[in-house]
């Protein structure tokens, strides 16, 4: 994590006071929280559900891309100086036995639209909380709306095709970040202080820890994926 201190320019005190008045909402000290999330070997697979065999063809190199990193997000829960993302309506297209996008960051009050553009019927629900979003058939061409008001992580899964799973993360702050191909994340403009860092990957909160955002250390978070134990260590290198 790196905290960048922005020193006040050595202007006249009047100019400084004027600048302070112009930017009333900016935190006095803010920095960037960044690090890397190490997911387990299984998370490198593009498949959520494995069969008995997975063999390379022996002629053409296999292409690996995606995997759990594409479905992982790091969220900071901070009690001060936060602004929830604005409520919005997001449409997820269900077609080709797939859902796009699969990971959504929403503000409270947002509405999720599930639009079936494929040729098969789906049955979406939130299996972990069936009362929130019960199983409902979504016919080809059909649309289903769901409003999210409470912050938290929601996994929406198709009962007929369980690999179609949509992660809707409702946050009440703007401090979150996704992973790049190497698992790195960056969350800018984080105010100094205590915060709770949570990692959501493949439909669950896989890691949670308390951090001090004022420390200039890069976080190295190990998450054994997707249903094992997780460990973490600190990497002093920035």
């Amino acid at each position, binding site marked *: 994590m790196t905290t960048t201190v922005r020193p006040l320019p050595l202007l006249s005190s009047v100019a400084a006071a004027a600048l302070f008045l112009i930017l009333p909402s900016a935190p006095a000290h803010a920095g960037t929280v960044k690090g890397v999330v190490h997911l387990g070997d299984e998370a490198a697979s*593009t498949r*959520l*559900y494995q069969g008995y065999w997975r063999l390379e063809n022996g002629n053409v190199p*296999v292409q690996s891309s995606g995997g759990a990193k594409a479905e992982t997000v790091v969220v900071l829960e901070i009690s001060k100086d936060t602004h929830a993302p604005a409520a919005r309506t997001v449409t997820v297209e269900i077609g080709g036995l797939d859902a796009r996008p699969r990971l959504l960051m929403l503000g409270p009050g947002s509405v999720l639209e599930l639009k079936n553009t494929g040729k098969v019927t789906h049955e979406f629900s939130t299996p972990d909380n069936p009362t929130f979003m019960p199983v409902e058939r979504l016919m080809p061409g059909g649309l289903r709306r769901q409003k999210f008001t409470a912050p938290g992580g929601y996994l929406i899964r198709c009962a007929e095709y*369980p690999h179609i799973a949509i992660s809707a993360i409702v946050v009440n702050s703007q401090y979150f970040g996704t992973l790049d191909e190497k698992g790195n994340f960056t969350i800018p403009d984080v105010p100094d202080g205590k915060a709770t860092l949570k990692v959501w990957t493949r439909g669950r909160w896989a890691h949670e820890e308390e951090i001090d955002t004022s420390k200039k250390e890069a976080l190295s978070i190990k998450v054994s994926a997707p249903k094992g134990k997780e460990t973490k260590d600190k990497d002093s290198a920035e």
Partner: protein
Amino acid sequence: MFLSKIWFILIALAAGLAVTVALVAPRPAVQKLSALEGQRLDRAQYAAEQMLKVDAHKWIDRVSKLGRDAIISESLDSATRGAGEINVIHKTVQDRFNALIPDLANSGIAALVAVDNKGRVIARVGDNDKEYGDYVTGAEMVADALRGYLSDDVWGMNGRLMRMAAAPVLSKGRDRIVGALYIGAETGDNFVERLKKNLDVDVALFLRGKAIATTAYPSALTPLPDLIAQHAQEIERVKRTPAIPFTAGNDELLAVAAPFAGQAGQQQAFYVLFGKRPANADLAALLKNTSSDDLKWGHFPWIPLAGGVFLAVVIGLLLIRNEGENPLRRMRADLKQLARGEIFKIQDLQYGGRFGGLARDINAAIEHYTHAPSAPSAMAGKDLNAILGDSAGGKAFDLPSPGSAFASPPPPSFPPPPPPSGFPPPPPAGFMPPPLAFSPPPPPPMFAPPPPFSASSIPTLDADVGPAGPEATRVVASTDDGDEDTHFKNIFDDFVATKRECGESLAGLTLDKFKDKLRGNKDALMSKHQCRTVRFAVYVKDGRAALKATPIRD
């Protein structure tokens, strides 16, 4: 009776122990059998898992082999490149599929699908074979195939379970992936029958909480999904449940469930192997499962059992005879002797236990009725029933009670006799007092030697029979001191008169017979007790005439 009681207690304990052993002993065997059945199911589950694995590889090989077909490869290459009409390509691929697999159903294939390298369906045979042009890239197995992987999966769709296998289709030069094929084998009735045949256990398949195929109990497997759900942790850890007992109809079963691999595992897709649980070990189950063969000579220890029972019965009977019947018999003989006057009392020391107590009670009763507190004569008050018998002069000869008119007066040191209204009760029914003509027994400590009798000691009627109540006895004593005949005549007259007063019949009662009887008993008493004479008296007791005899020594 002590040993008899102990014996019966031992028999009861032995019987209880035998029943306990009979009920408890099968339990370890049942538990062992249950464990063995569970192990058998575990082994069957392992074998089933291997079969599924081998099957999956077989399907991968098969679809991979189909993907190496030149026509299919070229067609998909064309579709990927956008060369040619999609309808024509579809027709070409579909015809090729039909040519390669003419009998799709018998091959166990439910669907065979070819996609180009974008995941667009080019052709299908089997399910939905008229549809093409849709995309299935989102299916992980298909996406894997398009990346270059050969893999398998299990899908649960529309209430059906499908074992899937996919393989990439390479270009003719085998340098590019031009598409993929995937195949679906329906996993239903044929599959469970094949598993049953190979594993020798019943098999059921569950998908999303419903049984979709089973080899037995099609309508009785409803509780299984909930039971399986209770073992989610074991399933997560070891990919199968322990042996789960459950009831299907009238049968007690054991089941081992394991999830299917692939995404069907997320859809509560399980294969369940189950077999009959060993019968319960309770009494009803034991009897229910007992056959006639179990009771044949060779299988059941009839001889030892019968010998044991016979021995127990014999020992019990011997103990009863020794401790119950023999003392009773001896006591009865003693009582008869007592009644005949051959003995004075029962030798209670010869009896043990309650019989000894009974003998002492009898002796105490005899003492009570024959020995007044005033140390009456052993002869005083003896009942003449034993002397004369019922036929001598009719009946109603009775024991005089201590303190009655014919009992010796108490010595001055003794308390006064009970008031006239308090005559002691008659002896118990059936109890025959000892006759006067008994041989004198050795004087027990409790029996003081009777004092000498005196004629003057005979109380007068008026002295002893006062204002009696309804139960009082009126005594008509003869005080005649004349010769024997006169005395007997007087007694006879009194007796007849008394019987008349009492309203009794005089049939068969003659003076001669009466005299003969009195004379014989008088002689017997005199010789026995060395007394000078015997005086008789008539009295009324309980409304009937009765006689009393009193030896006179001086």
